[in-house]
C-alpha cells in the first residue's frame, strides 16, 4: 500500500487524531466561533431573536469601567500570585529532591491542596479567615478583631494566599521533574571545578531547568487570569464589589445582568489578553532555552 497517497494520510489522521479532533471542534472550536458571532448581537440569553448590533458590544466593553477595574485587579492578583507560586514551588521542589527524610510524604502532602476542588477550598478558607483567624486574633488582642475578608485589601490578600496554597504543590511537581532531569554528572563537574553549591544551582541547574520555569509560569499565569471558582466561594466579589475578578465580571454581565453579547465580548477580550501574555512569556522563555 502506498503510504504517500492522500487517502492513506486522511485515514491515518482520522484513525489516530479523528475522535480527539471531532471532540475538540465540538466543545471548543465551534462554541468559540459561535461565541464570536454572539458578540455582534444584543441577545439576552433567552429570547428567540438575536438582533445584530455590529460593534456596539465592543464599544460598551471598552466603556465598562467596572470591567477594566476587574481586569486591573486580576492583573495585580496574577502578578503577586504567579511570583509567589513559582518561588515557593521551586523551594518546595528543591526541598523534596534534596533527600530529606520522608520526602515522598512531603511531595504528596504539598500536592494535596490541588486535589480539592476550588469551590470547596474557597468555603474551607472562608471558614478559616472568618472564624479561626478572627478567634485567634481576638484572643491575642482581647478585642473584637474583624475578618481579613471584610476589607478590600484583605480580600485580595486572601485570594492570593489561597491561590498560592492551591497551586504551589502542583507547580512543585513540575519543578521536581525539572530537578530530576538535570544530570548529576553536570552538577558534580561544576562542584569539582570549584563552584559553591549556590553557584552550581544558579549557573548550572537553573539554566537547565528553564523549560520547567516556562511551563510553570505559563500554567500559573493562565490559571490566575481566569480564576473564578475560588473567587466565587471565598469572597463572591465582596466587600463592595472590590474583589470581583475579570471572569466573575464576565459571568455576571452575561448571565446575571442578561447582557449576553456584551459579556461574550468581554470574555473575548479577556481571552485575547490572556493569550497575548501567555504566548509572549512562552516565546521569551523558549528563546533562551538551553538544550541539555
Amino acid at each position: 500500500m502506498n503510504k504517500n497517497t492522500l487517502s492513506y494520510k486522511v485515514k491515518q489522521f482520522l484513525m489516530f487524531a479523528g475522535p480527539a479532533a471531532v471532540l475538540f471542534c465540538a466543545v471548543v472550536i465551534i462554541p468559540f466561533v459561535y461565541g464570536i458571532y454572539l458578540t455582534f448581537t444584543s441577545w439576552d440569553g433567552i429570547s428567540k431573536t438575536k438582533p445584530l448590533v455590529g460593534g456596539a458590544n465592543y464599544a460598551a466593553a471598552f466603556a465598562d469601567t467596572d470591567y477594566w477595574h476587574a481586569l486591573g485587579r486580576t492583573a495585580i492578583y496574577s502578578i503577586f500570585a504567579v511570583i509567589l507560586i513559582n518561588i515557593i514551588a521551586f523551594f518546595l521542589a528543591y526541598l523534596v529532591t534534596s533527600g530529606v527524610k520522608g520526602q515522598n510524604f512531603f511531595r504528596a502532602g504539598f500536592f494535596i491542596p490541588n486535589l480539592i476542588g476550588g469551590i470547596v477550598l474557597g468555603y474551607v478558607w472562608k471558614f478559616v479567615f472568618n472564624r479561626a483567624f478572627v478567634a485567634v486574633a481576638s484572643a491575642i488582642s482581647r478585642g473584637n478583631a474583624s475578618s481579613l475578608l471584610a476589607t478590600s485589601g484583605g480580600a485580595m490578600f486572601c485570594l492570593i494566599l489561597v491561590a498560592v496554597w492551591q497551586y504551589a504543590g502542583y507547580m512543585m511537581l513540575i519543578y521536581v521533574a525539572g530537578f530530576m532531569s538535570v544530570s548529576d554528572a553536570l552538577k558534580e563537574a561544576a562542584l569539582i571545578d570549584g563552584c559553591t553549591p549556590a553557584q552550581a544551582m544558579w549557573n548550572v541547574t537553573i539554566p537547565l531547568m528553564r523549560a520547567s520555569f516556562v511551563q510553570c509560569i505559563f500554567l500559573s499565569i493562565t490559571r490566575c487570569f481566569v480564576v473564578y471558582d475560588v473567587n466565587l466561594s471565598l469572597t463572591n466579589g465582596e466587600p463592595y464589589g472590590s474583589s470581583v475578578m475579570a471572569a466573575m465580571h464576565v459571568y455576571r454581565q452575561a448571565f446575571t445582568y442578561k447582557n449576553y453579547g456584551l459579556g461574550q465580548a468581554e470574555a473575548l477580550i479577556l481571552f485575547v489578553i490572556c493569550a497575548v501574555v501567555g504566548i509572549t512569556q512562552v516565546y521569551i522563555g523558549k528563546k533562551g532555552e538551553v538544550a541539555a
Partner: protein
Amino acid sequence: MKRNIKKVVTTVVAAVLTAGLMAGCGGGGASGGSSDSGTNITIFNSKMEIQSQLEEKAAEYSEEKGVGVEVYYSSDTVAAHLATRYSSNEPYTLSMVDAKDIYSLAEEHAVDLTGEEWVANTTQAISIGDKVYGFPVCIEARGIIYNADAIEKVTGEAFDPKSIKTTEDFQAIIDKLIAGGMAAPTGVMKEDWSLAAHFLAEVYEQHDDPDAFIAGIQDGSIKLIDDEKFNALMDTFDVLKDNNYAKDAAISAEREITEQKLAEGEIAFMYGGNWDWAVINAYDYSENMGMMPVPNDSGDGTNEKLVGGGSKYFFIDSSDKTTPEQVQAAKDFLNWLANDEEGQAFLVNDCALVPAYSNNELPVADPLGKSVKEYADADALVANYNYLPDDHYSVCGASMQKYLAGEIDRAGLADEITKYWSTAQVGAH
C-alpha cells in the same frame, strides 16, 4: 504547497464529521420521554426550601391524576438556568421564576392564562398588556423582624410592634433594651441583595409613583440626598447600623449567625423578610417573633405597611416542544394548587408559604408568615417594584455595603446611587 492542501482537506473532513455529530445531537432533544400512560410534565422549582416537599407531592400527584410530574431544581441564577434549557430546546413545561423574569420572558415563551379560574382570586397575578402570564406561588414581604420574647424579657413590659412608628420610637425601644442589658439589639445582613434589592428598594417602592421617582433621579430633577423618603428610611437604617451587634465588622457578619442570634434572643431586631424563617427555624427559636413595618418619619402611612406582594411565579411554556396536552396538564396543576383543598394545604402546611389566593383561608404556619398574612389581609402591603435593572442589587449593594462599613457617608451613598441611575434603565413594563 501540497502539504498545505492536505492539511486543509483533513481539516474539512474533520469539520464535516463534527457537523454530522452536531446534527445527530440536535435531532433527539425532546423532553420528558413520554411513558405509555399519558402526559408527562416537567416543573422547574427555584425555591430551594420547598424542593423536597414538592418532589414528594409530585410523586403523589402523579399517582393520583395519572399525569407524570418531574421536579427539577437548580441553584443557578433563574434566568441563566432557563437560558440553557431554552438553548438546548428542552424547556420545562412549568417554570417557577421571579417576577422580573416574567416581564422579560413571558411574551415570547409563556402561555396566556387569562381565562383560568384562579385569576379572579388573586391580586398578585402578572399581566402584560391584557394577558395574564404569571401564576403567583406565594406572598412574601419585607420589614423588621422582631423577637418579642427577647424584648419583653429585657424591658419587662409587653411589646406591641404597632406602637413603634417613627425612627424616634424605634430608637427609644433600642435605648431601653441597651439600658436593660442587651448590648447591641440589632443585626444587619450585609448581603447585597438584602441591602439593595430589599432595603434600598423600599425607597423607590414607598414613593407613590416609583417610575416617576426614578425618572426624576435620572434627569436630575430629584436630588436623592434631599429626598424625604430616602432620608427617612436611611435614618432608620442608621439606627439599625449603629446598634448592630457586629458594628465593628459589619461586612464580615454572616447571615446564619445573625439569624441565630435573633432566633435565640441575643438581638431583638433585624431587617428581613418572611423567607428568613427558613433560616431561623433551624435554630432554637423563640415563640413570639413577627414582622413589623420599617419605622420612619415620612408621615405617609408607609410605617404601617410591610413592603411586598407576589413572589415566585409559574409560567407555562408556549414553545412547540410543549404539547397542548402538556399545557392542559400544567394548567390543571396550577388550578389544583390554587383551588383544590389538597393543593392549598400543600402550599400552606407543607411548604409554609403565605398563599396569594383569597379562597385559601388556611392558617399560616410560621410566625413571620402570620404577620405577612395579617398585613396582606388588611391590604397593608406596599407593592413590590419589579422593574429594577438586573445589576441594581450588586452595584447599589456595593454602595450600601460601603455605607454600612462607614467607608462613605450618606451624601456619598446618594451620589453613587445617582451615578448608577445615570446609565441604568428600568425594565420594560
